[in-house]
């Protein structure tokens, strides 16, 4: 935080407790931070889906827009942004090309494994069998979106979805999420900043004496 001036501070994210000792400030979980951040951009979403670098969160909001139920993927990075990165690299695409090429595919190859390690070897063997790279790319997108949609279904089944996290920048993921859930999807500008904005809003609300 050297060289950065601030009026108030709230910490969130996986390292949120590490700041203790350096700066004494309120701490909120990233789940609450996403709820607050989402409300800043939209007041008509019933659910939030965040696909970040290493986890996926599905959150439902009550009629006042407050945190209701939530689910997270367990333990490993299966089906998260990191998974997409590894698969793009295995196919020899940049992340941008990966989404753009997937959209152009006419059909999707079925990807069976959600484990980053096993799926990578599945992709490599599909390519060596002569599969179309675009179709494999679409298959990978479908695999993670169908997994995320089922996580979302566990917390809520209707209404507009607020799509956050870096993966929301991926146009293929966005359109698949709409088709898979049959629900409207809203992507805010800078979806990867939603948690940080939520924490900032929390700091603004917090009755906090320096």
């Amino acid at each position, binding site marked *: 935080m050297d060289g950065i001036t601030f009026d108030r501070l709230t910490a969130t994210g996986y390292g949120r407790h590490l700041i203790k000792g350096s700066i004494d400030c309120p701490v909120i979980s990233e*789940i609450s931070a996403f709820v607050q951040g989402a409300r800043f951009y939209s007041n008509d979403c019933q659910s939030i889906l965040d696909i970040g670098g290493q986890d996926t969160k599905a959150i439902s909001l009550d009629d006042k827009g*407050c945190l209701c139920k939530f689910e997270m993927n*367990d333990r490993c990075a299966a089906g998260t942004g990191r998974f997409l990165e590894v698969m793009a690299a295995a196919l020899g695409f940049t992340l941008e090309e990966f989404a753009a090429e997937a959209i152009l595919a006419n059909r999707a190859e079925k990807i069976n494994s959600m484990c980053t390690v096993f799926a990578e070897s599945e992709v490599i063997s599909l390519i060596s069998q002569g599969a179309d790279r675009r179709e494999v790319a679409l298959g990978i997108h479908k695999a993670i979106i169908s997994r995320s949609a089922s996580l979302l279904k566990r917390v809520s089944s209707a209404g507009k979805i607020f799509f956050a996290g870096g993966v929301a920048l991926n146009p293929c993921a966005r359109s698949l999420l709409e088709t898979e859930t049959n629900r409207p999807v809203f992507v805010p500008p800078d979806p990867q900043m939603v948690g940080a904005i939520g924490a900032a809003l929390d700091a603004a609300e917090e009755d906090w004496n320096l």
Partner: protein
Amino acid sequence: MADYTKMWQDLGLDIESHEALLSVLGKAYADIFLVQKNRPEGMKYFDFVMSEVHGLRIKEIMDAKAQGRIVVGSYCTFVPEELVLAVDGVAVGLCAGAEFGFEAAETLLPRNTCSLIKSVFGFKLGRVCPYLESCDIVVGENTCDGKKKAYEILAPLVKDFYVMDMPQVKSEMGRKLLREEYRKFMAKLEMESGKEITPASLKRGIEIVNEKRKAMLRLNALRAADPTPISGLDALLINQVFFHDDPVRFTDSVNKICDELEIRVKDHTGVAPKGTTRLIVSGCPMAVPNWKVPMLIESSNAVIVGEESCVGERSTRWLTDVKGSTIDEMLDAIVDRYFNIDCAIFTPNPSRVNHVKEMVKDLHANGVIHYSLQFCQPYIIESNPVEKELEKSHIPTLRLETDYSQEDTGQLKTRIEAFVERLKKR
């Protein structure tokens, strides 16, 4: 602590591994329990018990054996201590709460076996549980599929392994089965101890255990106060010690701490400020030293005010009727008492969720954390309908599934904190 090396060697323990286990346990205990603020004075007794859990208590058990008393170990709250006391035996709950010796356990069990069962094997194969090694009889009860199949593999490794069958349905036939199993168990105890169960000895057994449960009920009721006079961790510890301490001394110590807590309640003092988020933990049992989830909860701006668990109210809530005068009548009363236990092995099991709701109301809880051990089918499968029913009754519920490892503490903490934040916003 005195030097118990000789006693441990005589019991056949692996001294080096056992030392390592005790040092990890001692450090965890200091980091989790001793650092808590505003602990009741009465916890000193339980701190002492824990510091001597493999020492003085084992010595007492060995002394009891030398006096001709038998030691009966078990892994479940369905094994009636009353019957063991009726032959002047010592009943002990056996070690199943630590991630110890899992590699060895996995040579005999599939990897996807619940941590509790793996721990039973880890302790046996690693020769680090002095309770298990001092047992004359080890009772394995046919509750879940995991346990009953694992017991087939455990049986030849243990001196005298005794299988107790269990009903799965709360029917008249189910009750008959339980009664018959308890009757057979009485005969087994009489044979091993060489002592006859008399109406007087059985009544004495029932009374000792009733007193122990009454003290726990008193403790549970005191936790309804806000601020809560005792932490959930300390209350869990008392529930854990329930299974291996001398029952009369334990009862006395619980009553003593309750006297102290009554004063706290009157003075409106407690372990956390008034208004702190109050939670019930419901689900799988937490055996010593399985403190991971309660520790995460109580370091996330919340207090636990009740445990709907076999190491908790499922073990302590009902008393045995003492009206009977014949052995048959008293056995009926014991069967009636134990047949109430709403373990998830029963199908259907509606009284369990009703009990959770009652606890939420009586203890003024804000929400429920449903705790399942990974691969524990009965509780994991039941967790979904339990969650739905509680949420339908406007009781916020968070389902957690975990094991004895520490690798998921970050993810668990995020969920628990978010859940507590959800409750605060209401």
